[in-house]
């Protein structure tokens, strides 16, 4: 078997000191294989965002090991982490985080500004940004500014931005949290397409409808992983199962 793209062992993230200490992550183990589509679920405050920040090299763990693509990145300095982010990771945020003063196309071009491992000229960069926007179905909206786009369209621009450096790993923290169900479906469709093209996708979500679209659901509780998913019903979906069962009983 290939080296997993994400291999996390006994990860701790401690915030604060003394009385106010919070173990946001308390011995989490996570393994994601190359090309997987994984959802991360868990109650609010269970450490999902903290985990995503560490996977995304935006933050460093207090202790534990994190191998990204076989390389230990848990002790890199800020400049090296930035380099890893630009090469390996595409982020999609709940709040889109587009720069309002830039057009959709310019927003998508941003990550290439900081991409040092590939020498691309302005023409090639533009071509890639256009291709990324076309891939999310916004080929007709390239010159539009964020305030001229719907929430779903803005999130698609953000996905195009995450794609443009062709990273092997895309991380999305509640990408549909601010969207209606129709837009959510469109976003998920794009994720499926990327997944089919071989990109590894990790999505944090509260919505079971979103989570069940993934291949498996990693379930977090109080900073540790209670289920890696795969077989059976995820503990994070049990309450929903119960609710639907009760609803069915009630109608019968």
């Amino acid at each position, binding site marked *: 078997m290939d080296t997993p793209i994400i291999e996390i062992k006994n990860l701790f993230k401690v915030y604060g000191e003394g009385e106010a200490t919070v173990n946001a992550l308390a011995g989490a183990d996570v393994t994601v294989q190359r090309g997987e589509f994984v959802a991360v679920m868990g109650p609010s405050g269970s450490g999902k965002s903290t985990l995503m920040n560490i996977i995304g090299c*935006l933050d460093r763990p207090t202790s534990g090991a994190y191998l990204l693509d076989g390389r230990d990145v848990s002790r890199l300095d800020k400049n090296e982490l930035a380099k890893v982010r630009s090469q390996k990771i595409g982020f999609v945020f709940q709040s889109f*985080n587009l720069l309002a003063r830039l057009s959709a196309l310019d927003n998508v071009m941003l990550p290439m500004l900081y991409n040092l491992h590939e020498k691309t000229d302005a023409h090639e960069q533009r071509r890639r940004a256009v291709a990324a926007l076309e891939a999310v179905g916004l080929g007709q909206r390239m010159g539009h500014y964020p305030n001229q786009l719907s929430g779903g369209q803005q999130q698609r621009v953000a996905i195009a931005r995450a794609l443009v450096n062709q990273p092997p790993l895309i991380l999305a923290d509640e990408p549909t949290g601010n969207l209606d169900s129709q837009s959510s479906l469109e976003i998920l469709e794009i994720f499926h397409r990327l997944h089919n093209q071989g990109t590894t996708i990790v999505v944090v979500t509260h919505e079971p409808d979103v989570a069940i679209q993934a291949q498996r659901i990693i379930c977090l509780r109080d900073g540790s992983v209670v289920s890696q998913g795969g077989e059976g019903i995820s503990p994070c979906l049990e309450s929903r199962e119960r609710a639907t069962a009760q609803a069915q009983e009630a109608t019968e």
Partner: protein
Amino acid sequence: MNFAKIVRVAWDGLNLNKMRSFLTTLGVIIGVASVIIMLAVSAGAEAAIAEQINSLGANLLIVSPLRGVPGAARTLLLEDANAIAQQVVGISGVSAEQSPTAQTIKANGVTLEGIALVGTTADFPVVRDYALGEGRYFTADEDERKIKLVVLGAGLATDLFGEQSALGQSITIGTLRLTVIGVMAPKGQVADVDYDGRVYLPISLVLDKFMPSGPGGISMRRDAVRTIYIKVESQDKIDSVITQVTALLASRHDVDASQPDFTVQTQQDIIATQEAATAAFRDLLAWVAGVSLVVGGIGIMNIMLVSVTERTREIGLRMALGARPTDVLLQFLIEAIILSLAGGVVGVLAGVGGSYLFAQLGTMRTELVPASIPLAFGAAAAVGIFFGYYPATQAAKLDPIVALRRE
């Protein structure tokens, strides 16, 4: 990220808030422009002094009564000038000068008020390198005998007699009738002395008729002169002549040669003294200009700090997309440098334009100092780097997670 791209990003950042960027730059513009103007003004003042002194003639020694000593202003006498002319070797002329208060002149039906009179000895044209336009200057003999002769400045001759020749005409100064025997060649205005608008008279006549007798009590010599100019034959004899003149006058005034009641100065001495007097003024101006440049820099630092705070979320996003702390540092540092360099460019233009305008308006003589342009420009760049560095490090230090969460 390559340099051109960082500059591009920094430029976009500044365009976010054009008015604010401009106002921030204004501080640097004023600083740079004032450095250039201040230096031009003081260089202009120095040039005016040097020009004035040099216009007196070449190889000249200037003997003046020592200032600040009671009674000394009246110690230099016409006889002193005569003694120098007779006893000192290596000189080609001596001219004593005295100027009474301005007088009213009437001639040819024209009345001119407030005309400056200069009493000189016969050597005046030679000593002062000041040629005659027509006619002749009076002789030593005529001076001694107080003959009522006058030589007119070129402009004054035209004012009084127009196209007509002034030679042989008579004019009235105060109540005294004099005959015009010469007109000086045009020399124009040097610094604030209008050579062409004055009249030149035998000094003995001036001392006799136009100098007020001193008020009772203080013994005032009627034959005191303001300045004695000595024309030295050549440059290499200047030191010898100074020694001779000092010894001669010391013995005539009965004072110790090491503590004379007069000064013997070369033109260079006088220029140096005058420049020393303006140096303090120039230094003060330079400080004021420098301080305004620093104030401009503080303005840049202030706005950059505001900008970093306002754009925290953007900084976080850029970091999440792969920007290294170094990239962020450079972006903000370059923004500050662009601001200050833009201020430098506009400031240089304003400074050069301002110096030119001052000169044109005739209020102040200005002399653009070429070195002041790179100096001011370099200072502006240094201000940008110095005051831009701190805000830039604040931006680079931001934690991307914290920055992204900021509203």
